[in-house]
Every structure is written in structure tokens, then in C-alpha cells.
């Protein structure tokens, strides 16, 4: 229980850091650490597949992509950010924590749930037999992402 709480607190702290830090590199690394912690939490909650994907894809692959991108871009003009963000985000965050603490515990006890059996079948069966349409959707999302990158980083030759 203590370990679980520590992991959850760490997850929140690193997620907040990922948003709040100004240095992109540090921000990307915080995000990687937070998803590593999330992966461990998944493992401890008996969801090994989710854990493996979280750690390999989000903590691993995406972090590498982020760091590569940061390394490839030049430090350009200073972007002025609104000062509003500095106090709005902590305010919203604290408000969320307070509401969460007040509401969630009482609420969770009241959630009615049907008795659901353990997930039917192996991971492969669930993915290929159960959620095939989602795979089509995933392919479409990847296509959209690739085309978006091609479109947004094309040479601006014709348009003003």
C-alpha cells in the first residue's frame, strides 16, 4: 500500500513537472519517468500487457523521438508565454486535488458494478478477435499522423 501510494504520488509529481518545466529536455525526461512509474503501477495491478506497452512505447520510443526532435531543432526566438499560466495551472491543480479528496472516496464505494469475470482469453485473442475495429482505427490514426507531419513540414513554395 505504501509503495503504491509512493508510486502514485511520484506519477503526479513527474506529470506536473512535465507540464511546468520550461526546459523541453527536462520536460521530456519527466514525462518518461512518469510513464515509467505508470508502467510499474500497471504491472502491480495485474495488467502486464498495458505495463509493457506503457514502458516500451511511451517511456521508451516516444521519449527517444522527443529527444531527437529537440536535438534537431535550433534554439530560436524566445517565445513569450502568458503569465496567466503560472498561476492558473497550480490553482486548477490544487482545486482538482481538493475535489478529488473530498468526492472520490465517498463515490467509489457507491459505484454499482456488475460482476465481470476475468478478461476472456489471452492478450492476442482480445486484440485480434475482440478489438479488431480498433486496430483499423489505430492504422487510420497513424496514417493521419504521418500525413500531418508531411503536410506541416512541407516546403512552403507556392503559398504565401
Amino acid at each position: 500500500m505504501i509503495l503504491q501510494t509512493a508510486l502514485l504520488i511520484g506519477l503526479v509529481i513527474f506529470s506536473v513537472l512535465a507540464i511546468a518545466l520550461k526546459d523541453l529536455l527536462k520536460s521530456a525526461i519527466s514525462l518518461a519517468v512518469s510513464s515509467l512509474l505508470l508502467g510499474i503501477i500497471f504491472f502491480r495491478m495485474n495488467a502486464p500487457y498495458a505495463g509493457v506497452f506503457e514502458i516500451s512505447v511511451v517511456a521508451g520510443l516516444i521519449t527517444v523521438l522527443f529527444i531527437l526532435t529537440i536535438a534537431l531543432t535550433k534554439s530560436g526566438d524566445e517565445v513569450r508565454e502568458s503569465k496567466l499560466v503560472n498561476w492558473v495551472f497550480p490553482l486548477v491543480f490544487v482545486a482538482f486535488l481538493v475535489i478529488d479528496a473530498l468526492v472520490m472516496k465517498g463515490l467509489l464505494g457507491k459505484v454499482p458494478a456488475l460482476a465481470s469475470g476475468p478478461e476472456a482469453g489471452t492478450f492476442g485473442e482480445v486484440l485480434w478477435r475482440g478489438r479488431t475495429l480498433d486496430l483499423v482505427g489505430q492504422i487510420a490514426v497513424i496514417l493521419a499522423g504521418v500525413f500531418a507531419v508531411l503536410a506541416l513540414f512541407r516546403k512552403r513554395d507556392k503559398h504565401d
Partner: protein
Amino acid sequence: MIILFVVLPLIVAGILPLVGKVSRRVLPDLLANATLLFLLVYAAVAGRALIAGGAVLQQSAWLGEAVNLRLALDGFSLLMLVAIALVGFAASLFSIDYMEHYGAKANYYALYLVMIAGMNGLVLATDLFSVYIFLEVAAVASYALVAFGLGHDELEAAFKYLMLSVAASAFIVAAIAVVFGMTGSLDFAAVASALQELNAGPVLVIASAFFLLGFGLKAALVPFHAWLPDAHPSAPAPISAVLSGLLIKVSGVYAMTRIFLNVFGLTPALSTVLMWLGAVSLVVAAFLALGQKDMKRMLAYSSISQVGYVVLGIGIGTPLGIAGGLFHLFNHALAKGLLFLTSGSVQQATGTRDLDEMGGLAKRMPITAATNLIGALSIAGVPPLNGFWSKLLIIVALVQAGHPVFAVIAVLASVLTLWYYLLMQRKAFFGKLNEKWASVKEAPFWMTAATVLLALLCVGIGILFTSTITTWIQPAADVLADGVHAMTGSWGF
């Protein structure tokens, strides 16, 4: 083969960048338009035969083995499919000439077709998580399309749109998680019947609130509308037409009504919330539209206002109200698509969207001016155009259901709508021709053809409104009016 609606645009999108290497313009134009024309004909001709015996569920096989590619087609999804194919085809015809100066046409069409596939997938999906995934497919493609011009405004608008859309997705996923936690299922029919067994009052309220926030943001209902007046005007005109005409309705209104009416069941409280949201959007956005000087921004506010009508109509929950709401959804898709396309013609000819700089353009661009007038009068609800009948249905339904105050609001907002559209007509197309525009010419052939197509539909549906309602709208309204029974009764395997 219902799956074609999703897979065909995806396959064509996949090969378009390769085709673009061979032919930069002609082949991508041809391929994309042919695909959309095929989908339009397929939906309009084969669709009705498919659902003649009630809703169809199709499960596909892959190499002889049944895989879980489950899609369902009923009256409501068919209406949406036809609307998507119709406006999608018109906007892609328009793109042939309009997107010429943006470059990277193959890439543009690829993104465009992925967006269409996402919308089609969403209206055919049979479970909550698939709805979410296809919502994201359409959204990711639309972010890139909004930013397609790569100018400062476009990028800023796309970023703002992305941020608010991500917040919307987060709410939607949270709601799905709550529902899954309670019922142990994601399938519409299974969730609907499980919720009947559970006494899930307060938790269902939370799930509904999350869905309302998420889909409210996607549909840009007031007070969740901040992103739309930036995103829609900044996009290239055909994309504005699809975003305002289709995307906010598919990923906002369709998803919301499908889940609230067919899965959760419309409670009186939910009905009241929807009606208020609709009425507030209707009035607030109409006032905001009045003050706009930017032509496309005025149209964008008008979209928020008209989605308000749709939600108000569906929110009543009576069969007539639902039919009115859906009819208005369809009519608005056509008319707003038309208006955004004509605004694109004007912008391309004059290089400005500022209404104060325009004037007298009807003399130089008679077809654009005439089609724009038809679109404007249709949305304002002037008889005998299509928009009049749908607004009339909504107002009659409001009076019948005992909501005279809402009916008065709807009528007054309609007057406001006519007011700002007449302002637009006067400033842009009528009056003295601004000397700057003496050499302006009518829009190129395909752009004009697309607007004429939509304008003819607006007039035609207005005249043949009874047959449109009986063939397309009533089957859709029946599904929604059937409530939870529509899912549990006919969608089981």
C-alpha cells in the same frame, strides 16, 4: 459491405502520396473525387436497401476467419453517412481549383480522406471505445488540415483547436472508463441492457456530465465554443465547410445523441439540460455573429448558433422534435457547407475576408452571390428553402411539448439569424461595387460547380421536403425515438 465506408477512403489515402509522385494534380483530384462520389452513390442508393429490414450488423471475416470488425447501419447512421458523403464530395470538388495554390495536393487529399474515414467509422461504430478512436482519427486529420496553409494564424488556430479538443477527448475517455467500470462492457447494446439492470443513478449522472463536457466541446456548444471561431475561419475554405458542416455534428451531436438517447436513455433532467444548452448556444452565438466583420468568422458563429437549434430539437425528446433536429442537422450541413465554399470563392477572388472591404461583388461574381444568398436564406429559415421546414418542425415540436418559451426564443433567434445574414449580403454582394474589385472574375469552374450543386440541393429539398423527411429523416428519428430499445432490441448478436 458496410466496412467499405471506412476502409475504402483509408486505402485511397494510403496510396495517394505515392500517386502524387507520378502526377501532382490530375490523378489525386480524380482519385479523391471518384472515391467520394462512389461513397455518395453507395450510401444513397444501396444504403436504403440495406436497412430495409431494420438495422444491420455486419461482422467481417479475414482470411476465412471471423474477426471482430463489427459495424452497424441503421436509419440514423445512414442519414449521417449520406450527409458526410454529400458535403464531403462537394468540398472535394471545390478543392480541385481552390487547393491549387496551396501545393501538396496529394497530401491534402490523403488527410481529407482519413478525416472522412474517421467520421464514417464513428457513425458506424457499435461500441464506446471505437467511437472514441474514430473521433480521434477525424480530429487528428482535422488539426493538420486547419493548419494546412502554414501561416501564423492557421498554426495558432490549429494549436488552440488541438488543446481544447484534447481536453474534450479526456472527458470522453473518463466517461467511457466510468461506464466500463460499472457495466464491464463497451458494446452499445450490452451497456444499454446492463444499465437497465443496475440502479446507477448518481454515477450515471457523472458519466453523463463527462460526456456532455466532452461532446459539448466537440460540438462547440456555448460555453464550450471558444476554439471554433478561430479554427473554422483559418482553415482552407473546403475544410471550413467540412468542419462546420460535418465534423462538429458527427463528433459532437451524433456521438452525444447516440449515447444519450440510445444507450443511456433520455431522462427528463438530461432533456432539460440539452434544451438549455441548445437555447443558450442559439441566442449567444447569434448575437456574437452580428458583430463580426470577418465573413468566415460570422459563418463560424452562425454554426454554433445552428448547432444550438439541432440540440434544442433533439433535446425535446419527442419524435417530432428529434425529426426536426435531425432535419436541421442535415439542412445546416448542406447550407453551411455552401456558405463556407462561397466565402472561399470570395476570399480567393478578392484576397480578403473583411466584409467592410467588400461591396457590390454580385456584379462581378453573380453565381457565387446567388448561391451564397440561397445558403444564407436557407439557414435563416426563409420559405420555401430547406432550412425553413426544419426550423418550423422544431418550433412546432416545442409548442406541442409544452415549451412555449423555448419556441419564442427559437423564433426570435431566427430573426437575428436573418439580420446578420442580410448584413453579410448587403456588405459583400450588394451596394456599390468597390473600385478595387473592378477586375474580379467569377470563381473557376469546379468551385462554382460545387456551390451550385449544394444550392440546388437546398432548393430541391425545400420543395420536396415531405419526401425527404419520409425517406431519410423519419427512419433516423425513429431509431432515436425508440430510445434504449433500439439498441437492446435489434442490435444483439
